[in-house]
């Protein structure tokens, strides 16, 4: 479990053909405590994926600093992309084995497959999996490296409601066993309330923190959808500005 300090002064996309220069992120500060599950909620195109790419080290063209942990020069980042990004020419198991150090005990992977209910599909090629299953494989891959921080970019988008709920529950089972620090991007406020310790609401152009709110429902009560809905209503009443961000 690791602390994450995000401090981005500015992230700008340069002018390109007809589009003028665009400042995506400005004066953005966010801290994540060890083992904390934080959901980022904001409108489409506000820069959430850009932020995750910066934290993952995929985008270094910004002003500011990111620190993950204290002693790590290069932290281990588990990233669940919006599209699962599995190698189609490798089996599900090989996809995960590729991110692990050589000689890792196979039983370690067996346990992860077991928790995510994918033991039967581990030798299949990704093209034969449903979207829900592919997303579960991507989640296993991110957890498998024992990351310092786990980034999740709308991992349940375009899943039907029952499948999204199933994958969400499996994710929570895995996270309870391995409570990594998580930064989770979503549009869905109900989903965010069901998962997070803290909700961070974001504005767009440039992206800034609007509200940072702790979720006060106990985790064991979140399976009750009426509790989640009541909390959502309370949030919308107490923070009317949020409505414009959903």
């Amino acid at each position, binding site marked *: 479990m690791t602390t994450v300090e995000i401090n981005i002064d500015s992230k700008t996309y340069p002018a390109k053909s007809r589009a003028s220069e665009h400042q995506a992120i400005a004066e953005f500060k966010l801290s994540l405590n060890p083992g904390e599950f934080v959901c980022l909620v904001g409108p489409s195109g506000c820069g959430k994926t850009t932020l995750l790419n910066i934290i*993952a080290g995929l985008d270094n063209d910004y002003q500011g600093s990111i620190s993950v942990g204290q002693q790590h020069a290069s932290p281990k980042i588990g990233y669940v992309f919006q599209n699962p990004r599995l190698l189609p020419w490798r089996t599900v198991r090989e996809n995960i084995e590729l991110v692990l150090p050589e000689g890792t005990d196979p039983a370690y992977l067996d346990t992860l497959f077991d928790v995510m209910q994918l033991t039967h599909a581990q030798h299949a090629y990704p093209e034969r999996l449903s979207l829900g299953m592919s997303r579960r494989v991507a989640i296993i891959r991110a957890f498998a490296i024992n990351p310092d921080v786990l980034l999740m970019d709308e991992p349940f988008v375009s899943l039907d409601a029952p499948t999204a709920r199933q994958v969400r529950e499996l994710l929570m089972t895995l996270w309870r066993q391995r409570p990594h620090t998580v930064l989770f991007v979503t549009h869905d406020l109900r989903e965010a309330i069901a998962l997070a310790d803290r909700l961070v609401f974001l504005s767009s152009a440039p992206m800034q923190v609007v509200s940072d709110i702790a979720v006060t429902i106990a985790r064991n009560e979140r399976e009750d959808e009426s509790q989640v809905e009541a909390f959502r209503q309370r949030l919308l009443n107490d923070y009317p500005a949020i409505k414009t961000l959903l």
Partner: protein
Amino acid sequence: MQKTLTRKLIPGAASLSVLAFLGLWQILAMVLHSSNLPLPESVAVVFWQACLTGELPYHLGVTLLRLVVSFGIAMSLGCAIGILLGRHKKLDAFFDNWLVIFLNVPALVTIILCYVWFGLVESAAILAVVINKLPNVVVTVREGTRTLDQDLLEMARCYRFGKRKTFVHVIWPQLHPFVMAATRSGLALIWKIILVVELLGRSNGMGYQLHLFFQMFDVASILAYTIAFVSVIQLFEVLVLKPLDKKSQRWRR
């Protein structure tokens, strides 16, 4: 069921088409009754005799050796340059015109220039073949590199695959169809160029032999040598390329 039936029928259809071709040849040769188109069995006899004297295996072997060496150099160098140009836009912009020039220089010109500049030696012959094939491989592999999936490359970076693992598991499988296309078109192109190279400046190999047969109007020997060479290339396709293709495509639905 339908698929199994089709799979069983395809080899039958292929053999039938070869038989039909031989039949057509036989009929034409009988109708024309000319030494310019000998009967298939006459060609078979010439083929067998050339095999027994060891002449055909020797010249075929020499040409195949040239093919393997020049093909190997052109493919490995072409893949490396193609990947480099596909990944670096500035380098690509600089060398793009060179590629267009080399793609359009006639094979005969390259061969003559290599022989004039470096003499009638083996290395000049190989160099001429490589220069002819190289731009073709570079262009094909460069196109493949341009279409690499950036999402997968980002995933590999994020999960710290490192250069070797990224190349073997992420880049190469995506380039494979392009490399196979370059291999197939390359084989067909290279052996034709090698024959010209041998005809113009070597004292052995298929091209040299064909030149002799041409001077003697020995069509049966020309056909016997051609069939031997085409059969070897066909064997390579069936025994090496097709299994390779099948293995690398097994993940597809």
